[in-house]
């Protein structure tokens, strides 16, 4: 059920730092490096989003990027904690959390409540309902494991195609994500980080995660789980760690695939937000009126579909 369990940041530091350094110090150092990488990633992503938004709006935004009130600061803290569960590749992740999906949704709902006491967290409920459809099909809340479960069909075995209820669930997710991102009480950096997380969830649970025909072909030639490092046992009993070029290529391909899919999602959200407000509001209200009652129908339908598959499987 869990992901790879081997963190590239920790492995790399263990290979680089002197062996005299105690293990707890290496772990703390790796945690600090990992957090610094995550925070740098959030900052770079926010800068890219600001540029895209300015291009879509046709003007340069001069508003503040960072939180300006305590409430916005706390909300950003909750969003930053959620980033930990976002994986880049099977062995490149900040934290391999078994309940990664729950952590991200809980942190985003917490951020919504903290930043605005009267916030409508109905969107968080809809996000959860939409994501339960692929969870029923895959049986995992871990983002790395969920990606791996879609590696069949030449890397195109997406959950989107494994259940007839997944496509309406994906549309419901998009509408809910748009509703989440349109809240006014957020600081821009929190909004961009939240968009990245929601797009990452959609990419992972509907569109194959870090699986693609490229990663499928690399998997075929390099083995089922090619890692970053080769660990060799030396004659004196010590372990030598070397970077495996093939594994490195595979992990880079996985990271490029997932980040690419996520950024497409972010762009779609930014583009939809740049549409004229009244028209978008009307389209969202219609979608909400039609899709929200569909939430329970989708869940029960996905469960019945899985039951039918199990019945066919046992009779075959």
């Amino acid at each position, binding site marked *: 059920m869990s992901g790879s369990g081997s963190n590239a940041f920790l492995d790399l530091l263990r290979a680089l730092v002197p062996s005299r350094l105690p293990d707890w110090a290496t772990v703390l150092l790796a945690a600090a490096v990992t957090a610094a990488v995550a925070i740098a990633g959030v900052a770079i992503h926010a800068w890219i989003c600001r540029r895209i938004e300015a291009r879509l709006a046709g003007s340069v935004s001069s508003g503040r990027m960072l939180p300006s009130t305590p409430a916005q600061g706390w909300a*950003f803290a909750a969003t930053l904690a959620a980033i930990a569960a976002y994986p880049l590749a099977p062995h490149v992740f900040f934290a391999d959390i078994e309940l990664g999906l729950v952590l991200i949704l809980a942190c985003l709902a917490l951020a919504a409540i903290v930043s605005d006491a009267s916030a409508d967290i109905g969107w968080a409920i809809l996000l*959860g309902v939409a994501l339960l459809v692929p969870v029923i099909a895959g049986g995992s809340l871990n983002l790395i494991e969920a990606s791996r479960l879609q590696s069949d069909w030449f890397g195109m075995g997406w959950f989107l195609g494994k259940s007839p209820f997944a496509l309406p669930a994906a549309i419901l997710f998009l509408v809910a994500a748009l509703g989440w991102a349109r809240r006014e009480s957020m600081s821009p950096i929190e909004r961009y980080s939240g968009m990245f997380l929601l797009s990452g969830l959609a990419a992972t649970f509907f569109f194959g995660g870090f699986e693609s025909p490229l990663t499928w072909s690399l998997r075929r030639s390099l083995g089922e789980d090619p890692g970053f490092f080769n660990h060799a046992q030396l004659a004196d009993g010590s372990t030598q760690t070397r970077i495996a070029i093939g594994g490195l290529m595979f992990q880079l391909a996985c990271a490029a695939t997932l980040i690419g899919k996520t950024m497409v999602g972010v762009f779609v959200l930014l583009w939809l937000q740049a549409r004229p407000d009244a028209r978008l509001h009307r389209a969202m209200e219609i979608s909400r009126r039609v899709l929200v009652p569909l939430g329970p129908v989708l869940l029960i339908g996905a469960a019945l579909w*899985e039951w039918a598959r199990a019945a066919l499987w046992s009779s075959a």
Partner: protein
Amino acid sequence: MQFDYLIVLVLSGAGIVFALTRGFGDRQVEPGARGECQQLPRQVLFATGMVLLIPWALVLRDCLHNSGPAQSLGIGAFGLLMGGVFIVILFLGWAYVRKCE
């Protein structure tokens, strides 16, 4: 495993430090914010109900396929039925509250 949760802790800590450094300058409560809190408990109630569906969705596949942790427990379609009843009750309540709002 501990390392993974250490990362969450470090990132949360970084965020909290950030929030504290931003927060000392402005402690005002938005006008009217206190009066608009009444709808939140209802939403939290439904969010809690939704959270209870997560473990159900997680193990349903194993129950129906009689595999994984649910192997030989014989839950099968009974798990599907119970989950369905829960979903119907939960969303009927939600629809009623939405209609009243």
